């Protein structure tokens, strides 16, 4: 551990002047303390991911022989090959994409439609409807898990895509977020459209929704991320191997069938890639989305 610590500040040193530019100014001792703290943090944040990626390219023998090493002595692809051979990996990957992708698309559509009514239409029962949305936001997911499982059993929806997707195809949080966003859009916009004879659907689809791109991006990123990463829901709905998503599949196989670490690490790396790529391109929406909610 202590080797990490000493290595850290050195690696970060070049950036130190930038730190000193903070408004409070301050002496170099404080700046050093700051970058030692951040250096330790950086090492702690980065090393597990570096080790994970490098481990996925290492042989089992290398892992056991050189546990102190962060990097492979020789690179092997057997982890990545094994993941396709020993797990129904393609199926898991497809399931994850279908589950996260389709559910997110539906959530955006349904949530924005619902929010359009709640934010921009006047009707009797609007407040009650909104209170019900807030109520469903407050109750922990675990409370509904068992009854929903039993419902899905009666519908014959266990181990099906519709069972995975439809119960999650709307989120109270998304409705809430869209509503806040729609409320701030000036009412003159749709009044003008209404005078021109546009229908509600058309106002929603062609006036309001195009203005809501930041809200769409936030809900898309947040929802997609949560669904892609979710364990408990797919674990409960999909009891058969062929309907599981990556997190559920990796956990179950990690526990039962696969003993080779590189294979599991390779699976984990592959499951990480889409999220990492999305994060790279849409950082501000990840940050904005997460800042506005908890993760679940």
């Amino acid at each position, binding site marked *: *551990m202590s080797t990490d610590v000493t290595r850290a500040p050195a690696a970060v040193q070049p950036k130190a002047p930038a730190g000193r530019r903070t408004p409070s100014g301050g002496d170099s001792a404080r700046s050093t303390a700051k970058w030692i703290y951040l250096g330790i943090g950086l090492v702690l944040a980065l090393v597990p991911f570096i080790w*994970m990626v490098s481990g996925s390219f290492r042989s089992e023998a290398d892992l056991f022989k050189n546990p*102190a090493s962060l990097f492979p002595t020789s690179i092997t692809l057997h982890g990545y090959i094994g993941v396709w051979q020993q797990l129904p990996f393609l199926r898991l990957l497809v399931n994850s994409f279908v589950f996260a992708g389709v559910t997110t698309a539906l959530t955006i559509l349904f949530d924005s439609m619902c929010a359009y009514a709640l934010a921009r239409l006047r009707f009797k029962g609007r407040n009650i409807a909104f209170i019900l949305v807030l109520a469903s936001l407050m109750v922990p997911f675990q409370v509904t898990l*068992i009854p929903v499982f039993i419902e899905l059993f009666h519908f014959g929806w266990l181990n099906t895509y*519709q069972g995975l*997707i439809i119960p999650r195809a709307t989120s109270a949080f998304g409705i809430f977020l869209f509503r806040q966003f729609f409320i701030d859009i000036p009412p003159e916009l749709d009044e003008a459209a209404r005078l021109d004879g546009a229908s509600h659907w058309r106002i929603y689809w062609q006036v309001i929704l195009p203005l809501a791109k930041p809200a769409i991006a936030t809900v898309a990123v947040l929802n997609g991320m949560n669904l892609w990463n979710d364990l408990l829901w797919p674990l409960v709905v999909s009891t058969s191997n062929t309907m599981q998503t990556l997190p559920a599949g990796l956990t179950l196989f990690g526990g039962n069938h696969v003993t080779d670490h590189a294979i599991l690490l390779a699976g984990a790396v592959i499951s990480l890639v889409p*999220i990492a790529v999305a994060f790279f391109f849409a950082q501000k929406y990840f940050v904005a989305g997460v800042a506005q909610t908890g993760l679940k």
Partner: protein
Amino acid sequence: MTSEITGTAPSRVTRGGAVPPASAESPARRRRRRPRIAPWLFMAPSAIILGVFVLFPIVRSLYYSFFDWTVGASTQPFVGFGNYIKLFHDSQFWNALRVTLEYTVVSVVLLLVLGFITALLLQGESLANRIVRSVFFFPTIVSLVTIGMVWKFLLDPSIGLVDGLAATLGLPSVAWLTSVHLALPTVIFVGVWKSTGFAMILFIAGLKGVPQERYEASNLDGAGRWQTIWSITLPSIRPTLLFTSLILTIQSFQVFDLVYVMTGGGPLYATDSLVNLLYRDGFVNFQTGYASAISWVLFAIIMIISLLQLRLFRYNDVD
């Protein structure tokens, strides 16, 4: 024009096999004649899903909790508060409650402190700050399964980097996840490791909202750095502090994925959290009624803690 609009929407939907909202279009055309239907049509998909899969199940769950409901049993006898009384005498439940409370208290305190310090250090918009912030934030978006797995391997006595480095330094190997005493602290460490960047982002958002004049005034008064943080920064970000601690508490109280992946609740139930217990009773042992009672206790405790936190922070506000 209208057909062009409908052309895109339903096709996106039928892929998921959902009820196509095509109905939302035709009534919308009829809107001018029957304006009262439109809002309900717009809300229909969400309302049906929330009704069937959230609101009704909440009621249902409460109902189950009063029955000795076992999946597959021929009769499901009504037991009144029997499940709750049984819970009260169940050492497994008290253990899970203690584990969950320990996990929550320790991680929330650590996350608040570390998140706040990190946010203070990285609130500036320099390139270096933004890069470091992204690195710290990254674990937040990675699944708990991946994180749990990687740390489980990192801490593994025979292949893990941690013990490997310890051995190089001549330090003894430590049973991080298989020791009754160390397993929970280790899981807490990994949880904190994952969420520090999350707390940091919330605090940075809060710090941005503090009016600059307050700092200037405090500078003029000759307040030191710590004094400024204590008497200006912290009181100014009280809403953020409340929001962050609430979110973190609710999240920590529902800890499941990490435990499930890293220890499975062991060794000897040392990391058996409430949701882990709920999962085991509900989906492994199929004791639906009992598990439902656990979920309601979970809900009640989360509500109580949330109210306490609201109270606590409001109380300070009056000072």
